C-alpha cells in the first residue's frame, strides 16, 4: 500500500502534544505541607483561630465552606455542652467551649499476700498530675486544638486508715508493722513494703552420698612451678588403694516449720535418707554410712543407682608412648605392647609388659615382668625397699672401712713406740685422714657413689638416710676429716651404718621379683629375685634381694645377689670387666668364668685370670673357696 505523504508531520505533532501534557502535570502538583498548613483549597472557605484560649470564627464567603474544629490530646471540646471527640463544623463559636483537660494526681495502694502466706505486702503507687493550657493557633480552615503542659500536680499521701481497714478484712492475726505502713503511705514514692511477717518455712535437705573419688579416667595433679614441663604427663590414672574410703553418707538436715500471717503452721516434710550401693571391689562399713575399697584398682560408678565398684588392674592395650603418657596406677598394670623411651610406669601391684621396654622407667611394688627385652632404663620392684637394698654393698663397705680405721687406731694406741701426743693437741682428724688415704682410699669413691644416689627433690633429700649420707660425704671428703676431733665420731658413723644395714636386711612381707628376656644397659633393683631367661645380660647393673638367675651370658656391668648368683657365662672372650658380688654366706655359680671377672663374697674379692668351667664360689667360716 502506498505511504501517506504527511504521516511524519502528523506523528511529530502527536509526540509534541504528549510532551506538553506531561510538563503541565508536574507544574500543577501542590505540596502536602501546603495542604496541611492551609487546610483550605478555596479562598472563600471559613477560618478558625485561637487566641489566649478563646476560639475566633471568620465565616466563609459565598461559595466557601464553614471551618472544622477537632480536639487533640488533653483537650476538651463541647458543642452546646456535649463533649465531642471527632471533627465538627463550626458555624457559631458561642456553641463551642474549648478548654484543657488536666491530668489529676493519683495515690493508690494494694495489699497482697506472699505465695506462702507468710507475708503481707503493701504496694504503693503515686502518679503525678499535669496542668495544660490551650495553644494559640492562627487562622485555619481545619483547626486542631492542642494543649501545652505547664505545671505538675503532686500526688497526696495515702490515707493509712484505708490500709488498716483492708488489713482487717484479710484476717491477719500477727503483729502489724504500723511504722512501715505510715512510712510507705507518706513517702510519695512507689514501694513494696512488708507490713506483716510470719515465719518462712525452711525446707529439709535430703541426705546424699559424697563420693571421695573422681569418675574421670585421669586426674591431674596441681601444677608446681618448680617442676619442669613434662610432655609425657597426661594425668594420673584414677585409682584407689585397698582400704581407701570411697564414699560417705551425708545425713539429711531437717527443716523448720513456718507460720502464716493468719497464724497457721506450715509443716515441713523430713529430709530423705541417702543410701550407698556397692558392688565388686567395695564394701560398706560403719553400718552403711561409708564404703571402702577392698582391693587396689580403678573406682567406677555403675548404672542409675550409682553402684560403687573397684576394678582390679589396668590394661593398656597399646604401647605406652606419648599418646598414653605416663602411667601411675594403684593396682596391677598389664601393658599389651611396649614401653617406649622416656615413659614412666608406676604400679602399687605388678607390672606386666608383653613386649619390650626401651629406655623407660618401671616401678612395680609387687614385681615387674617383661616378656621380651629390656634395653636401657630402670626397673624397680619392691618400692623404696629395693632402692635401699641396692645400697647395701656400699653401706657395708663403708661400715667395714670405718671399722678398719677404728681398729687401726686402737691397735696403735697400745703400741709403745707410737705417740698420740699430736692427736691430743690437734685432734684425731689428721690421723683419720692419713689412714683413710693410705689404707682405705676407695672409701671416697664409695661415698661419692652413695652421694650420687641421693634424690634430686629437695624434700626427699631430707628423708631416710640421705641427711646422714650428705653429712658423711662432707666429713670424709677432701680436708673434711681434719675437722674430726675424736675417733669416737668414726665409731658413731660405723654404728649408725650398722643399724641401717640391719633394718634393710630385715625380712620383707613379700619380695618383689623382676623377670625379663634380655637385659642391656639397664639398671634393675628388686627386693626379690631377678631372672633373665633369654640370651643374657649386657653391661647392666642388677641388685637382687634374693637370687640373680641369668640363664645366658653376663658381660660387663655389676651383678649383686643377696643369696646366690647363677649364670651361664660370666664375662667374655674379650675380657670385659664384670663384677659379681654376694654377701658372706652367699654363693656364685656359673658354667663358664672368663678372665677379668671379679668375684666377691662379703669383703673378699678375687679377680679371675683364666678361663674356668663349672665354678662355684662360696664361703664357709669366712674362708672363700673357688
Amino acid at each position, binding site marked *: 500500500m502506498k505511504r501517506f505523504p504527511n504521516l511524519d508531520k502528523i506523528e511529530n505533532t502527536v509526540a509534541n502534544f504528549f510532551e506538553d501534557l506531561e510538563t503541565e502535570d508536574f507544574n500543577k502538583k501542590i505540596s502536602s505541607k501546603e495542604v496541611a498548613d492551609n487546610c483550605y483549597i478555596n479562598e472563600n472557605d471559613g477560618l478558625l483561630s485561637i487566641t489566649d484560649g478563646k476560639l475566633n470564627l471568620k465565616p466563609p464567603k459565598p461559595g466557601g465552606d464553614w471551618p472544622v474544629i477537632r480536639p487533640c490530646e488533653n483537650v476538651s471540646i463541647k458543642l452546646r455542652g456535649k463533649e465531642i471527640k471527632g471533627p465538627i463544623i463550626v458555624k457559631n463559636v458561642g456553641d463551642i467551649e474549648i478548654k484543657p483537660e488536666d491530668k489529676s494526681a493519683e495515690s493508690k495502694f494494694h495489699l497482697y499476700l506472699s505465695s506462702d502466706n507468710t507475708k503481707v505486702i503493701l504496694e504503693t503507687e503515686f502518679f503525678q498530675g499535669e496542668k495544660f493550657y490551650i495553644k494559640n493557633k492562627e487562622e485555619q480552615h481545619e483547626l486542631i486544638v492542642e494543649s501545652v503542659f505547664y505545671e505538675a500536680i503532686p500526688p497526696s499521701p495515702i490515707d493509712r486508715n484505708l490500709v488498716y481497714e483492708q488489713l482487717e478484712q484479710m484476717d491477719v492475726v500477727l503483729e502489724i508493722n504500723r511504722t512501715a505502713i505510715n512510712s510507705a503511705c507518706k513517702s510519695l514514692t512507689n514501694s513494696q513494703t512488708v507490713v506483716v511477717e510470719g515465719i518462712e518455712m525452711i525446707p529439709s535437705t535430703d541426705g546424699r552420698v559424697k563420693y571421695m573419688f573422681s569418675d574421670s579416667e585421669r586426674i591431674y595433679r596441681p601444677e608446681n612451678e618448680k617442676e619442669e614441663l613434662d610432655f609425657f604427663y597426661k594425668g594420673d590414672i584414677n585409682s584407689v588403694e585397698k582400704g581407701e574410703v570411697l564414699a560417705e553418707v551425708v545425713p539429711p538436715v531437717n527443716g523448720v516449720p513456718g507460720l502464716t500471717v493468719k497464724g497457721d503452721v506450715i509443716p515441713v516434710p523430713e529430709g530423705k535418707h541417702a543410701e550407698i550401693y556397692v558392688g565388686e571391689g567395695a564394701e560398706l562399713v560403719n553400718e552403711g554410712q561409708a564404703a571402702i575399697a577392698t582391693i587396689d584398682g580403678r573406682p567406677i560408678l555403675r548404672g542409675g543407682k550409682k553402684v560403687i565398684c573397684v576394678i582390679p588392674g589396668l590394661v593398656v592395650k597399646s604401647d605406652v608412648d606419648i599418646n598414653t603418657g605416663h602411667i601411675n596406677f594403684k593396682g596391677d598394670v598389664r601393658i599389651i605392647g611396649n614401653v617406649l623411651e622416656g615413659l614412666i610406669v608406676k604400679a602399687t601391684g605388678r607390672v606386666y609388659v608383653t613386649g619390650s621396654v626401651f629406655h623407660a622407667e618401671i616401678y612395680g611394688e609387687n614385681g615387674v615382668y617383661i616378656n621380651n627385652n629390656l634395653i636401657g632404663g630402670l626397673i624397680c620392684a619392691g618400692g623404696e625397699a629395693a632402692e635401699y637394698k641396692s645400697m647395701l654393698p656400699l653401706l657395708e663397705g663403708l661400715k667395714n672401712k670405718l671399722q678398719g680405721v677404728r681398729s*687401726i687406731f686402737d691397735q696403735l694406741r697400745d*703400741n*709403745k*713406740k707410737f705417740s*698420740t701426743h*699430736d*692427736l691430743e693437741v690437734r685432734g684425731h682428724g*689428721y690421723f683419720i685422714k*692419713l689412714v683413710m688415704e*693410705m689404707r682405705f682410699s676407695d672409701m671416697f669413691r664409695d661415698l661419692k657413689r652413695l652421694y650420687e644416689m641421693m634424690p634430686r627433690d629437695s624434700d626427699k633429700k631430707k628423708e631416710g638416710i640421705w641427711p646422714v649420707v650428705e653429712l658423711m660425704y662432707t666429713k670424709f671428703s677432701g680436708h673434711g676429716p681434719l675437722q674430726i676431733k675424736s675417733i669416737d665420731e668414726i665409731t658413731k658413723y660405723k654404728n649408725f651404718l650398722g643399724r641401717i644395714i640391719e633394718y634393710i636386711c630385715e625380712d620383707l612381707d613379700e619380695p618383689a621379683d623382676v623377670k625379663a628376656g634380655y637385659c642391656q644397659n639397664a639398671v634393675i633393683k628388686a627386693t626379690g629375685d631377678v631372672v633373665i631367661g633369654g640370651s643374657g645380660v649386657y653391661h647392666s647393673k642388677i641388685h637382687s634381694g634374693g637370687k640373680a638367675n641369668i640363664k645366658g651370658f653376663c658381660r660387663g656391668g655389676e651383678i649383686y645377689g643377696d643369696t646366690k648368683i647363677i649364670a651361664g657365662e660370666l664375662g667374655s672372650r674379650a675380657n670385659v670387666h664384670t663384677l659379681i658380688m654376694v654377701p658372706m654366706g652367699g654363693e656364685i655359680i656359673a658354667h663358664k668364668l672368663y678372665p677379668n671377672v671379679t668375684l666377691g663374697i662379703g669383703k673378699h674379692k678375687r679377680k679371675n685370670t683364666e678361663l674356668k668351667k663349672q665354678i662355684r664360689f662360696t664361703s664357709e667360716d669366712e674362708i672363700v673357696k673357688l
Partner: protein
Amino acid sequence: MLKVEKTEKDEGVYFDLIGELDMHTGGILDNLLQKEDMTNIKKLVFVLSKLNFIDSTGIGQLIRYYREYAGQDVEVVIDNENDDIEEVLELIGLRQIIQDD
C-alpha cells in the same frame, strides 16, 4: 728430741733418726733435708730403728718426702728393724708405698 746422723754411701744417703720423730721435732729433719743437695742423690734411706717414738705427724712427714722426691727421681726407702715401729708403718699403710731397704 731428734738427732739425725747422716751417712753417705755408694748406694745412697742414709739418715739415722735417733730419739722422737713427731710434731715437735719434725722441723729438725726438714731443715736438714732442705740444705741437702739432691742433684746427685739417687736414693734416700731413713733408718728408724733407733727411734723411741713416732707419731702420725712423723709418718705424714715421711710420706711427704716420698712423694716429693719421687718427682725428682730419688728413691725413698725406710730401713727399720724395730718391731713396734714396723707395726706402726704396716698399720698406717706406709709399707704399701715405701719399701724396706
